[in-house]
């Protein structure tokens, strides 16, 4: 019997995951994290979500605790989110929450308290390779696959992780929740960033924490063609909200320069790049692409539900990673995570990193 700390958000996935672990005979303790004390639509942290998690735990006959990790969430997720926007980056706060809170702080706490494993309701699979090392694989429901936001997990985390839903589709999860008459069976999936409200949006949240800088929009020849209210809120690849005259061919943001308050736009072809540089590299096990001049073949995914593209990957002498695309690829916004999967199946996470701004062209 395994002692499992089950992370319960109050949503349908973690409710069913908890039920499966109980059914399998594990000793399960439910934990809900209080992360964000401010406004939220419902997110992961509101009182009603905690109520849902507690009621499900009661239904399953397991103990339920609330851990306040709000200070860590502020330090590692919210503050960097705002600082990154100030620097013209496009951060992914869910990745940082997984890295520092769920699979950092909570992982460490579970270990210190004597638990054998942490379980979550993510749609992803755990695989054990022939050499005994662990890999994260995609969830059976490809539309709901969450392996991208878990790419930072190394052997230490993977070795103590349980993902009960890895082999199930979302429909199967909801059906199971109905079978168990769980109150969370029809609860909508959480959307977007939990600390950003749909009413105020990103602009309100960041605007309350940063002085926003109005900027100019220029074309590839440097001619001013529009204006934006806040350079900090513009993202590479963005098409709307640039104050452009209508009627012309679609144009996209190809560069954001926060120091000069300048946004550059271009045609779709201007967005294409040969390679993408990555920092903050992390690996499932051994580093990929180090020392191999030609690079290692990988499949690369640049957003949570994006389509993987073929590339080679190598790490240069400075420790910077380079994704060399097999075909020219749309530029990825600096600050975003890029995840490397195995070249054969694009199923197993090898590692990944965060796009850096320099010399991407």
């Amino acid at each position: 019997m395994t002692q499992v700390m089950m992370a319960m958000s109050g949503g349908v996935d973690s409710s069913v995951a908890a039920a499966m672990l109980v059914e399998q005979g594990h000793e399960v303790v439910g934990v809900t994290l209080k992360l964000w004390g401010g406004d939220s639509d419902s997110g992961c942290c509101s009182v009603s979500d905690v109520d849902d998690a507690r009621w499900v735990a009661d239904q399953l006959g397991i103990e339920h605790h609330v851990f306040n990790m709000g200070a860590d969430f502020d330090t590692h997720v919210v503050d960097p989110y705002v600082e990154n926007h100030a620097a013209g980056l496009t951060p992914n706060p869910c990745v940082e929450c997984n890295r520092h809170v769920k699979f950092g702080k909570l992982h460490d706490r579970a270990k210190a308290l004597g638990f054998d494993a942490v379980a979550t309701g993510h749609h992803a699979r755990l695989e054990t390779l022939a050499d005994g090392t662990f890999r994260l694989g995609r969830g059976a429901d490809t539309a709901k696959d969450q392996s991208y936001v878990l790419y930072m997990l190394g052997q230490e985390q993977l070795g103590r992780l349980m993902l009960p839903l890895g082999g199930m589709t979302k429909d199967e999860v909801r059906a199971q929740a109905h079978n168990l008459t769980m109150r969370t069976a029809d609860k909508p999936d959480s959307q977007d960033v939990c600390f950003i409200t749909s009413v105020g949006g990103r602009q309100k949240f960041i605007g309350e924490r940063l002085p926003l800088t109005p900027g100019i929009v220029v074309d590839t020849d440097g001619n001013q063609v529009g204006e934006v209210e806040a350079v900090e809120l513009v993202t590479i690849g963005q098409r709307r909200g640039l104050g452009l005259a209508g009627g012309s061919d679609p144009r996209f943001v190809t560069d954001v320069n926060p120091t000069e308050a300048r946004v550059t736009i271009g045609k779709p072809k201007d967005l294409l790049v040969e390679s993408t540089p990555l920092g903050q590299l992390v690996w499932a096990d051994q580093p990929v692409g180090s020392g191999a001049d030609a690079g290692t073949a990988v499949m690369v995914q640049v957003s949570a539900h994006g389509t993987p593209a073929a590339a080679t990957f190598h790490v240069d002498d400075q420790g910077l990673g380079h994704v060399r695309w097999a075909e020219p690829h749309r530029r990825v916004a600096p600050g975003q995570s890029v995840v490397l999967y195995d070249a054969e199946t694009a199923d197993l996470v090898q590692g990944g990193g965060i796009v850096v701004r320099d010399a991407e062209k």
Partner: protein
Amino acid sequence: MRACAIEAMEQQMRASAANPTGAHKLARDARKVLDRSRQIVAAEFGTDPGNVVFTGSGTEADNLAIFGLAGPGGTHGGLPVCSAIEHHAVLGPVELLGGGVVGVDARGVLDLDHLAAVLTDLMATEHGVAVVSVMLANNESGVIQPLDAVANVMAEICPDALLHTDAVQGVSWLDPKVHAAKADLLSISAHKFGGPQGVGALVLRSDIALNPILVGGGQERERRSGTQNVAGIASLAAALEQAGADRPAMVARVGALRDRLVDGLMAELDGVHESGVVDGDRSHKVAGSAHLCFEGIESEALLFLLERHGVFGSAASSCASGAQEPSHVLAAMGVDRALAAGSLRLSLGAASTDTEIDHVLSVLPDAVRQLRRGNP
């Protein structure tokens, strides 16, 4: 709950659910129970039975004291002032009315110079000061507050203002006739001295005019409308009377248990700080309070491990979600935030035994070591 409190409650619940303001025999019997309870409570505080206002909680009693006296809806109209370590049931109303907040020193004792400065400033405004609220003993640190000295400062600066004390935590350990002799109003809550949850009282020392915050049938002499919880009030009175009688012996016995517990933990572990205690002097703390901060660990994790060993403690205060919140009391005492994150409050009481202390001493040091290692 105390056995006498359970008996009193059960007896009344079985007798009838009659409304004590009714006219018939059952109602008049309920009224008798209410009258006798009121007399018992009045005697414990040295006041007239007509000055006891029963409420639904300690929080309601605190709110009634502040809102009933201060602000636009209060009988005195001026501003309220309180200490920075008050329970949120006092801090909340004071902050809502824009009142003053007074700091404490490193021992958790009210800063009387700061009090004088705040009162002087507010008396110079058009509002003046209606009420000063300083708790008898703090619910987290167990530190006893100098109410006589507070009254003396008030007499010089704002002689017309009233002194309210939240005695919810203190009344088990301190005789309110001695330690809160100069308080004009006192709040109590039954479950803190062996009575039931959901019943409290605001006790006035004289016939103080007080505007109600609940308006309706005019019960409690127009100061708190709503049918009285007769069984709960009977139980409160029984518990309070016995708590008063037991107090001297319990304080001596529990104080010795607490000292053995805290001294034992501090001897066994490094990096332990007893909150509000300087040079080992605990004379300003109530006997049942053991409040410690452990370096290098977090309260939530420690509480989790202790619970597995059958030890139920607390840290600071809990928010609506059940999560532990950073302590405003330790912050006011100037305790470093990282150290405050490792706080533990073990409350001893009438039911505490030597065996329990032995058990805590046998499991708590290992739990702290385990968390500091990060590994079982």
